[in-house]
């Protein structure tokens, strides 16, 4: 059974089901991270001593990671543009790059974490590290989720391309929305945790 407006936009609302659904999901994600940012503020305001991020964290590494994630956002949007131009080859290239950059981000993250643990800086050490690990950990989890999603479209999901390239393009766009959102969260996490 083919549901209405899965592949084409409903005329009066102007969007497809998938797009609306994705944005709704992102709305809930905004509230999730909003609550965590609020927690950050509360802990910080209530703390007697709050370390400057650079005292405990590795800013150059995080700067590189920021660049990596931003680049992956561009490759993601290029992957979508390639779909829209009906070029499967270039889609595969850009999508592959996006996944790869996501992996690079996680690897760098891993080294960051390992260094912390090595210096006996654990989540339980103080509330700054607690919120640092929680926020970045949850974010990394989202990166991982995005990679899985992207890998699906890169691999088995391509089936849909042959049947209905337009629908496929839409779905890539929605996966992109999620990926950019993850990037967007990082854009706020980076200064709050590392630079302030």
């Amino acid at each position, binding site marked *: 059974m083919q549901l209405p407006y899965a592949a084409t936009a409903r005329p009066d*609302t102007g969007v497809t089901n998938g797009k609306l659904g994705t944005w*709704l999901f992102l*709305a809930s994600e905004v509230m999730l991270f909003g*609550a965590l940012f609020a927690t950050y503020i509360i802990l910080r305001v209530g703390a007697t001593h709050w370390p400057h991020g650079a005292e405990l964290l590795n800013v150059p590494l995080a700067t590189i990671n920021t660049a990596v994630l931003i680049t992956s956002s561009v490759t993601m949007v290029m992957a979508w543009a390639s779909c829209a131009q009906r070029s499967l080859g270039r889609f595969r290239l850009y999508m592959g790059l996006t996944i790869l950059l996501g992996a690079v981000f996680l690897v760098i993250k891993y080294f960051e974490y390992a260094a912390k643990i090595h210096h006996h800086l*654990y989540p339980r050490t*103080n*509330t700054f590290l607690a919120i640092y690990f929680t926020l970045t950990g949850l974010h990394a989890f989202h990166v991982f989720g995005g990679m899985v999603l992207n890998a699906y479209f890169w691999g088995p999901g391509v089936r849909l391309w042959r049947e209905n390239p337009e629908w496929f393009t839409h779905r890539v766009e929605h996966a992109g929305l999620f990926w950019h959102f993850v990037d967007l969260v990082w854009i706020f996490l980076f200064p709050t945790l590392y630079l302030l």
Partner: protein
Amino acid sequence: MAEVRDREVAAARAPALHVPHEEALGFWRKYVFSTDHKVIGIQYAVTGLLFLLFGFSLMMLMRWQLAYPEQPLPWIGRLLGDSRAPGGVMLPEFYNQLGAMHGTIMVFLGVVPLAVGGFGNFVLPLQIGAPDMAFPKVNMASYWCYFLGGVTMFVSFFAPGGAAQAGWTSYPPLAAITPFWGQVLWLVGMVFLITSSLLGSINFITTTIQLRAEGMTFFRLPFFVWAQFVTAFLLLLAFPPLEAAAVLQLMDRIAGTSFFMPSGLVVSGQPLEISGGGSPLLWQHLFWFLAHPEVYVLILPAMGIVAEVIANNTRKPLWGYRTMVYSVVFLGFMSFIVWAHHMFLTGMGTTIAGFFQTTTMIISVPSVIILTALFLSLWGGSIRFTTPMLFALAFLPMFGIGGLTGLPLGLSATDIHLHDTYYVIGHFHYVVAPGTIFALFAGIYHWFPKATGRKMSEFLGKLHFWPSLVFMNMVFFPMLIQGLAGVSRRLYDGGAMYTHAQEVLYWNKIMSFGAWGLAVAQLPFVVNFFRSIRGGEPVSRNPWEATTLEWAAPSPPPHGNFERPPVVYRGPYEYSVPGSAAGYLPQHVAAEH
């Protein structure tokens, strides 16, 4: 009337739309891992009912302890084991587990799944003329997340140290020092349940916006759909903060962080080995930021059901349909900014307390308006006292009592005396038990014919209704009295220790007998429910002569719902239209002549 019947018969004779795959699906794909919204709705409803029964059973054990403190539980006491009830006498720890899990199960595993997952899933797509939910696979995932959450919660009873025992509110630091596994499983279970609700709500909103049939404008949506639509927004935007809070509490428990733990804690004489620096009030804010909208999640679908049943059984349009819609939207909006009325006594200053009690009083206005509209809808009606109608009618005064008792709680000054007493327990049980639960019963009796093609017995239905009404009040009214007398909630001995409680202590026994009586009163329902699935009186598409779209589909509707996509010509409640021969004009029927 005859004309409408003819048309129905003709429609029934028309060749059914061929739905590919339908026959090809095996048992598992058809009934277990189904993506059909009706099957999922029924899965949700049945699981929800079972959990309601389970939550109620926990409460019946507690009510024994409250009526006969520290006397061995007859029969069941032995079975509970020494870690819970040595010699059949329930331990305080176990009492607290039962209380926390009763609250959690009733709210998150019973009522919400039944009201939103069950009725929402089953009825909403039908009422807007959609073939299914917008994301059927997500819908299935939502049910299975809920199921996993339920299993996790259930299993926690058998964990070392027992289930969570810090109340359904799980306030830290208490929640951080109770036995490990119970609390951790509670938190993990909550994460599953929240995820399930999020997936569900995305589906509900998208479906309502995108899959409305031709002609189904927003102001032709049945009130039930509006209620579910607003509910879905509440779930979507209020649940994530609790998800965040649950993750933080999990970190506190597992990684030893101090998000909710202030410095300098000394438990049983031992300083806690933590960094400190957290805020216990932060949890409360995050919890109630969800949990207040959550209580409207419990009531809005119920109001939706009641509105449907009342319109149908008064045989006239709802009074002030638009006003009701505006009110429900406003209610949803406001419900995000009243949460701290649960926290007046955490040390609030005048400004914040003033803000929250004002918003609380404001939010009571749309409820009053909706109730008024429902009351006025009765005027001039031709009221059929069917079983669903009886439950829907009883909802009105019962919700009235519950809602009105919210007022003294919402005023911070009077809340000083009433906070954390049985008055609060009485208040919210009046809204959720004889309120929401009655509305849910109304919905079950009303839509059972649509789901199964058979009617439930009216006689057993009435045998279910009247005793339930009496016993509900026998359980919950005395709570208000005890609360005014200053009996605290969550007391293992029901207040027997306190001097000022002595005068109202005898009510404990009365309430307990009420609760057990209530259980007996559910037997006709259970019998009726199971017997009617096969043995009920078979019905056509539209046994209640209703106007909304679900009654245009066959009973039960096939996969894909409608033979051909319905077209909507008018508002949802065109009953007793002057000059119409049938006496009612279904939404999908072009014109009478």
